[in-house]
């Protein structure tokens, strides 16, 4: 099964599982990629869990991945691993009375976060509701609306992306701990640990996780080279990905790309623990709600109507 050189860490992960299984059967030797194994494969095969690596080990992993990407994409892609900022918990708010459904956020997210163009992956879906609809029905909302101009009469729009739950069901079901909640509250995926079982996708009530059914297709010159290990670095076939509130930007003080691009200023972002943040002002002064509150996932993504 491992005759061919294997560059996809997702597969290496499967190999690792097989390896562990076969070791138990005393067959370790046969399951290992013995022949043409390069050092890099061995390294990704035995890469420790992200949370258990020290800074030196992380640095080595990043260097290895940067070299791999250099080969794959023929250009330099910087991968950082900025840690959560101490004492900060990120939260998001979206003003439904302003959103006009223009989808600028969708595509700003695609290019900032290196989402596959073909096949198409969008971390943000904008749902359209008729004003008198039973609009909380997310599953049956219209996401393919296509008029000449927005907003349309009698409609309102609700962008949905990862809700960064405090109690994330996706994390609980992951069999390999490839996804977890960071100290600043965002849920991340280690693409080198994800084995692509997609349990997390089934568990997510918001449809916020996306699977790479084939190799992500991004034109080389459109790759954003400023990446984070747990965020927008290039992904592999067979792994799950999702919004991280732009971890590569927010951990250095910037706003997420979707906040910056929104032409109507409907998107708000900040530190939930800072009493002077705009997020806290919104929670304290506006009527806010969260999606599917009854599920007790406790999203850190608030929707509100400013007027």
């Amino acid at each position: 099964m491992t005759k061919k050189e294997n560059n996809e860490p997702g597969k290496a992960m499967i190999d690792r599982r097989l390896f562990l299984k076969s070791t138990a059967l005393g067959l370790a030797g046969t399951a290992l990629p013995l022949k043409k194994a390069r050092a890099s494969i061995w390294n990704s095969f035995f890469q420790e869990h992200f949370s258990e690596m020290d800074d030196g080990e992380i640095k080595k992993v990043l260097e290895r991945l940067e070299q791999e990407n250099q080969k794959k994409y023929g250009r330099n892609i910087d991968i950082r691993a900025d840690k959560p900022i101490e004492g900060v918990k990120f939260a998001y708010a979206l003003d439904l009375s302003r959103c006009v459904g223009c989808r600028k956020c969708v595509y700003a997210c695609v290019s900032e976060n290196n989402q596959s163009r073909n096949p198409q992956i969008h971390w943000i879906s904008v749902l359209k509701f008729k004003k008198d609809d039973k609009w909380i029905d997310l599953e049956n909302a219209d996401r393919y609306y296509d008029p000449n101009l927005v907003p349309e009469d009698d409609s309102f729009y609700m962008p949905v992306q990862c809700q960064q739950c405090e109690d994330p069901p996706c994390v609980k079901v992951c069999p390999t701990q490839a996804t977890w909640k960071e100290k600043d509250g965002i849920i991340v995926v280690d693409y080198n640990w994800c084995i692509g079982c997609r349990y997390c996708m089934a568990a997510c009530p918001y449809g916020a996780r996306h699977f790479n059914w084939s190799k992500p297709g991004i034109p080389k010159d459109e790759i954003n080279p400023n990446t984070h290990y747990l965020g927008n670095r290039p992904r592999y076939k067979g792994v799950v990905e999702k919004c991280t509130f732009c971890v590569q930007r927010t951990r250095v003080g910037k706003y997420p790309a979707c906040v910056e691009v929104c032409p109507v200023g409907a998107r708000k972002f900040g530190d939930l623990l800072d009493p002077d943040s705009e997020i806290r002002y919104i929670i304290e002064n506006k009527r806010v709600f969260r999606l599917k509150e009854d599920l007790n996932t406790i999203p850190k993504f608030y929707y509100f109507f400013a007027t």
Partner: protein
Amino acid sequence: MKKNIIIVLLSIFTGFVFATDTIGETKEFFVPPPAYPERVFPCTRCHDNVPIKVQERILTMNHADIVFDHAEEQRWCLDCHDAKNRNKLKMINGNKIDFDGSYNLCGQCHGTIFRDWKQGVHGKRIGMWNGKKLNRLCINCHNPHQPAFKPLEPQDRPLKPLEANLTPKKKAGINDQERK
């Protein structure tokens, strides 16, 4: 919209104006410079020579491009523009303010929105979530003479599942724009 975005971008290179809140507390807002077209400023270039006419009328000699649709029944240009010094805006109490403080002018009548704007809730701030922020001016999004927000062209809708399957494999790597 496009014009405004360009102006905001430009201002990143030309440095910002610090404008102060003249009603209420004296908090400073970091705002881009005003967005009027350069050809009309300074207004006094002409207006020092144009006789002041206060009556409402259709303007034909100049500013014919301005469509006035902002509570126009109760109001006329000179409620907001100072008649004697056209480089200034005029507050209801008669105070003159600079164009870069135009949010104070709007705030007189749109109090609730103004309060939200100061908190970064109405309108938009860019910059650092934990540091210096730049407030977008009211007039970057609303034309003061025709303030209703202009409808926008939406970007491409996502592909439906079937359409996605129909995409030929060998085209992988080509972006959506090129595929059309």
